[in-house]
């Protein structure tokens, strides 16, 4: 993790409200799929806090790109910066999406068995990936999909957005370019199947698509909660990437917590920090009834 000032290469709008920010760093910088950065316009007084953005891709050894939705004061301030602008960056942060062999180690670190719903270990190593994207949740999973493809792990992507325009803003073209099986949904029916992305997912699992699979999901809280329910009902392992309003992003303020199921005495372990214990968690570990996200 480094705290540095990066220079903006480009900060372009994909569709209104959705932008791609590419930063140049003075040193080699690495980020793994699922990690994020805390960003803020250099020397800006308002808004006070940095904003957490997922690393979308790593175009070069000294470059990071962030796909983001303009949702409030912080992202609006970032949207107004142009090429050559300076951005304070604390990066890389959080844990990374585990794939293949990494899944076993991940489960043991989080103290959770790799099986769904906290059940006993599956006898088979998961050999398939199902990626579920909801809107700007796409920002967290493009690198994951690329890594799965490079590792030759069979992957099926479900990509849902409010509309075709929003889907394009959420990087649809980049996901198409992966050339992996891709099923699309849109709330308004302008793209793919009308409705929520969880509908084709549920049908797919119903047809046996979940055998030997791990589900990776990122999107709105209610979407991930629904994916967790579906995964549990079909007994498929599921990982989610969460976010939460963040103060520091590196584990100190203890503000960005999510409620988790805990057996610890006095419930001490009841909350985990999304920024250092996550952002990636086993879905069945989360207490979904306590909403930790603001959207």
């Amino acid at each position, binding site marked *: 993790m480094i*705290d540095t000032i990066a220079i903006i290469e480009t900060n372009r709008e994909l569709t209104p409200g959705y932008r791609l920010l590419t930063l140049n760093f003075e040193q080699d910088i690495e980020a793994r799929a699922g990690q994020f950065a805390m960003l803020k316009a250099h020397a800006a007084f308002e808004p006070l806090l940095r904003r957490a953005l997922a690393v979308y891709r790593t175009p070069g050894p000294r470059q990071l790109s962030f796909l983001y939705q303009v949702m409030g004061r912080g992202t609006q301030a970032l949207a107004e910066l142009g090429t050559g602008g300076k951005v304070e960056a604390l990066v890389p942060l959080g844990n990374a999406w585990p794939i293949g062999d990494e899944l076993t180690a991940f489960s043991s670190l989080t103290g959770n068995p790799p099986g769904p719903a906290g059940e006993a270990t599956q006898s088979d190593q998961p050999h398939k990936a199902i990626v579920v994207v909801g809107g700007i949740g796409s920002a967290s999973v493009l690198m994951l999909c690329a890594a799965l493809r490079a590792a030759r792990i069979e992957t099926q992507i479900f990509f849902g957005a409010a509309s075709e325009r929003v889907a394009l803003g959420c990087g649809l073209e980049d996901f198409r370019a992966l050339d992996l099986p891709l099923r699309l949904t849109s709330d308004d029916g302008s793209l793919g199947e009308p409705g929520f992305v969880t509908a084709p997912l549920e049908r797919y699992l119903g047809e046996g698509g979940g055998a030997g699979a791990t589900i990776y999901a990122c999107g709105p809280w209610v979407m991930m909660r629904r994916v967790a329910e579906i995964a549990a009902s079909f007994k498929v392992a599921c990982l989610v990437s969460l976010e939460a309003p963040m103060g520091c992003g590196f584990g100190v*303020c203890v503000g960005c917590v999510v409620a988790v199921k805990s057996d610890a005495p006095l419930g001490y372990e009841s909350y985990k920090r999304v920024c250092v214990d996550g952002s990636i968690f086993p879905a069945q570990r989360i207490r979904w009834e306590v909403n930790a996200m603001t959207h």
Partner: protein
Amino acid sequence: MSKHDSRLAVEIAGIRFNNPVMGASGTFGYGLEFAGLIDLNRLGGFATKGLSARPLAGNPPPRIVETHGGMLNAIGLQNVGARAFVEEKLPLLKQYDTRVIANVFGYSDDDYLEAINMLNDGEGIAAYELNISCPNVKEGGIVIGNSPVAAARLTEKAKRASARPLIVKLSPNVTDITLLARAIAEAGADALSLINTLVGMAIDVKTRRPRLNYGTGGLSGPAIRPIAVRMVYEVAKVVNLPLIGIGGIASASDALEFMLAGATLVQIGTANYYDPCVTMKVIDGLKDYCDRQELESLAAVVGAVVEK
């Protein structure tokens, strides 16, 4: 090896600090979290996250909300507990040339004393900072910090139980902070730190609910600095104890305001979140100030605007 500028050296209650810059409780974890970001050996000191006799889980989320020039927090005093701090965190801090202040709280006088007794067993703690003012706890803290009688009683007991100097951290959520300051000073505190956060609230107009799960929270950050400076100034006029100034400090200039108002040391809190290296920048800025003002010691400015 002398990496410390002697002009910045300061001593209070028999404790020598390399410089007056400290990390504030609740914003600096247990210190180790910053080891990869700043040179902990350069930092004057820091106050740990508030420690209780038993570990605490804290409040459900949302726990924080950004405001204008600040933020509200309702963390709920989540901490590993005094015992775990002594056994697991403290040994790792010994290698650093920085003063470790253990911040302590409890839900009753006995609770505080139990935590202090646990901390007395630890090696490497320079002083205790008594949190009597956390606005997020429904009992204990909020009552003690508002009452000169209760605060004095607790201070007296805590002083007797403490193996180290005792700093008491004042709440600003009172009508007249000088009453608390005087009572606590007379009860035997070795120093006072002020201010803690101010109770505030934010409401989401779309959902029609408070933005924090707990409802209210503590306001911190640059927005509160004028209130904090004023309170340090008022307290400096009526007590002779060393003061530690806290409230929205984000630069050397901010720190100097507090020193001129009567603070010998300062604590930096919220600024660490959005500028993790701020403590180092403030130390550098204080050195520059000494250069420009041709000061032999920063002590020369402490309380310079205070008429006693």
